[in-house]
Every structure is written in structure tokens, then in C-alpha cells.
């Protein structure tokens, strides 16, 4: 499971305050803790008013790179903001995100030619998030074709099929699993990612829905996730799911995780 740590995002109230006060220690602490918890990428998203977004994102990038070598996931709804701060990353990471909305692909894909940067691709376009599998697959194909023109192979693309809330769409998990399977069938080396916590919007005990959904998604082939790497229950579910699916030989990773105190009740070891 490729973990994209989601804890440095200006839409989180405590992070928003830290950004406003330029509290570097607070941001740095979140970067260090996510790295220690096994994050493969650290997402940085400013979520400020547009006129401050570039300078805020640059500041976040500087603070995070000061304390960790974990690659960044540069996150903005505006591709020109990503383009503007791209040069401040001191090693290849991930761009978050392209889709078929506006000219996102035209702005961001050229940045990824001739290097090892990866990218999140959302299956939506100028009409919104499609409510059917065919359109999501069509958008995936278009993005893969556009990426290919810049020499970007599918294994550098993380497709996010945009999971819907179970509270408003009763088949959201079943649809999500079908989307994951179909995308993987089309492009076996592509990654499928997602912010799984969207699925529990509007329901009580969201963590329970989230971790159960994670197990189903992993079984369907999801191999990348935008999540809180410090969420112990989610981490436990991921270890258990891989073991149960026969993808953790002799359950060694599961057992090691226990000995390392990563799973099981705190203080058990």
C-alpha cells in the first residue's frame, strides 16, 4: 500500500491556524510523524485564498523538506499553482492532481517529462464526477494517452475513481470495487488510489466504515491511498487484509508489525 499522508492540508482547522501563524514547528511535527508512520508521500495543500496560495505552498514545501526526505505530494485544485511551486521540490514526488477538467493535463503533464514524478489522476471532467463506470474508464484512457505523449508510463499514474458517499449512494462501495477492478484490468501496472474516508460522509462511527471499506478496496486491487498514516486502526486493517488475501507470505509483515508495536493494543509489546 502506497500511503499518501493527508495531514498537512489547510482545510484542517488546526493546520489552517498553523499556516496563518507561520507555525513551522507544528507543520514540521506532522511531517516527521507521518514519515515515521510509514508515509511514502507527504501531501501539502494550502487551501488558502488564491492570492496567497503559491507563497503558502512554497512555505509548506520548505518546512517539510527541512525535516524529512519523504517525497512531497503537491496538492492544489489550480494546476498553475502546482506549476509555480514545482521547482521548489528538491526531489521527484507526486502531483495532485490531473483530471479532464479544464487544461490540467496540458499544464501538469509536461512537467513530468524525463523524470520520475508521479501524478494523481481523478476520473472527472468538466461535467463533474461521472455516475457510471464507462465514463470513468474513458477518462482514465484519455489521461493515460495524454501522459504517454510525454513518456509517462501508467506505473507513474495513480487513478482516483472518486468514491461516493455511502449515505447518498447505496452501492458506492460495490461501484468503487468494480471501478478499481476495471481500471486494473485495462492497465495492469497503473495504481488505483482514493480518499477512502469520503465513503463514510454523513454516517456515525466513520472510522468503522472507513477501515472496512479499505479491506474491500484492497481486495479489489487498490494499492495506493490518501489517508492519515497515524490512524492505527486503518494501519491494522491494511496489514490484516494483505495477510488474509495471501499477499503477505507466511504473514511475516503482519507478525513483524505486531512485534514492532504497530498493530495490536498499545503497550502489548
Amino acid at each position, binding site marked *: 500500500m502506497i500511503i499518501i499522508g493527508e495531514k498537512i492540508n489547510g482545510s484542517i482547522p488546526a493546520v489552517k491556524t498553523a499556516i496563518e501563524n507561520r507555525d513551522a514547528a507544528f507543520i514540521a511535527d506532522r511531517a516527521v510523524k507521518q514519515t515515521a508512520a510509514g508515509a511514502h508521500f507527504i501531501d501539502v495543500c494550502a487551501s488558502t*485564498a*488564491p492570492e496567497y496560495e503559491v507563497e503558502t505552498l512554497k512555505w509548506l514545501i520548505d518546512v517539510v523538506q527541512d525535516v524529512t526526505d519523504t517525497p512531497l505530494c503537491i496538492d492544489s485544485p*489550480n494546476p498553475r499553482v502546482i506549476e509555480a511551486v514545482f521547482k521548489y521540490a528538491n526531489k521527484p514526488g507526486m502531483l495532485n492532481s490531473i483530471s479532464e*477538467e479544464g487544461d490540467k493535463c496540458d499544464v501538469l503533464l509536461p512537467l513530468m517529462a524525463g523524470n520520475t514524478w508521479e501524478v494523481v489522476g481523478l476520473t472527472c471532467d*468538466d461535467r*463533474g464526477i461521472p455516475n457510471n463506470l464507462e465514463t470513468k474508464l474513458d477518462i482514465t484512457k484519455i489521461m493515460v494517452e495524454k501522459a504517454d505523449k510525454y513518456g509517462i508510463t501508467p506505473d507513474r499514474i495513480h487513478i482516483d475513481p472518486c468514491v461516493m458517499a455511502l*449515505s447518498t449512494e*447505496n452501492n458506492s462501495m460495490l461501484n468503487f470495487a468494480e471501478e478499481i477492478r476495471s481500471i486494473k484490468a485495462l492497465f495492469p501496472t497503473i495504481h488505483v488510489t482514493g480518499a477512502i474516508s469520503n465513503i463514510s460522509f*454523513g*454516517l456515525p462511527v466513520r472510522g468503522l466504515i472507513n477501515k472496512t471499506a479499505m479491506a474491500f478496496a484492497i481486495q479489489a486491487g487498490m494499492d495506493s491511498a490518501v489517508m492519515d498514516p497515524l490512524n492505527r486502526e486503518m494501519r491494522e486493517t491494511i496489514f490484516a487484509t494483505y495477510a488474509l488475501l495471501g499477499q503477505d507470505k507466511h504473514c511475516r509483515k503482519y507478525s513483524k508489525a505486531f512485534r514492532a508495536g504497530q498493530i495490536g493494543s498499545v503497550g502489548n509489546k
Partner: protein
Amino acid sequence: MLKIADLGQFVIDGDEQGIIDHVNLLIEAKTDPIAIINEGLLSGMNVVGEKFKNGDMFVPEVLMAARAMNAGMAIVKPLIADQDMPSLGTIVIGTVKGDLHDIGKNLVVMMLESAGFKVVDLGIDAKVEQFVAAVKEHKADIVGMSAMLTTTMTYMQEVIKACQDEGLSVKYLVGGAPLSPAYSEKLGAIYAADASGAVDTAKALTA
């Protein structure tokens, strides 16, 4: 003997068939259709709104309740002349230009309708001209705007300016993840944090 007030429980339970059966029985018994709406359907939905706000009911249950209420509305509406339809006010609402997010906005629409507002939904990617035209056509009391992106929330300013330039006297209700009470105040709008907050705010603005 069936009472109008009993309809409320069917709404709360999200029992669509129960609503259909009992609204039909009440109409056969010559019950006032407006009373069916006010004392039956809407009063049930008010309880749902309260329970939702307090965390005792959840989105799927609220959706079921709204569906049941709307099934009842569909039966009584044709029996009431347009000008007699009870309404707390008219709200033109949309997710602003460049923004395609509508789960939250749809929930707000549903809650406002359930509370007794007439709602004109412009959908997603709604442009200045659409807001202005709809406010004029429906003589709206409130313009509701939703945005999920920092890049699109600034568009709200343009909508408000256009409405002001046209001399339209409306109030502005805004919401969405990137917005804050402070930013909304700067726009000259009132911020609502969630769907039940939007209903409370809309009620206060039209009171």
C-alpha cells in the same frame, strides 16, 4: 380516527408507502391539504431536522424521510392553488462556476425544501447570469452559493456584485469546505457550516 399529526411519524420513519396511504385517507376525509402539509409533513420533517442537527439521525435516514415527505407533497400539491402553497420564502441556489461538487449542496437543497422553502436549484457550475436571471424570475429572497475549492469560492463575490448592480434586494447564504465565517462576512454573506445550519440561517434571514 387518523389525525394529521400522525403523519409526522411516517415522515420520521421514512415510510413512503405509509405516507401515501394515509395522505390519501386524509384527503378522502376532506382534510384541508394545507393543514396536511403544515401540521403533518413539515412538522415531521422539522423533527427530522432537529434530530439530524443533534446527531440522532444520519444522512441516509434524512434522505428517506425527505423522500417520504415528497411523496406526500406530490399528492396534495395539485389540490392547492399556486398562490396558496405555504412557503417560508424562495431560495435560488447553486454550486458556483468552475466547481462541480454537489453532494453537500444537494443535501442543503433537500433540507431547505423539507423545511418549507421554495428552492430553485441551478445545479453545478452556475454562472452569474443564471443567478441573476433566476432571482428576477422567481423573486427570490435568498441566493445560496456553494464552493468546495479555494479557486472557485472567489466567484461568489462576482455573483453578489452582479445582483447588487442589478439592484436586487436579496440576502446571501454561502457554504462549502474552504469557506469560513470571516471570509463570508467579507463577501457580505452569511456562512452556514452544514445543511441544518443552512436551514436555521435561511429561516432567520426570511423571518
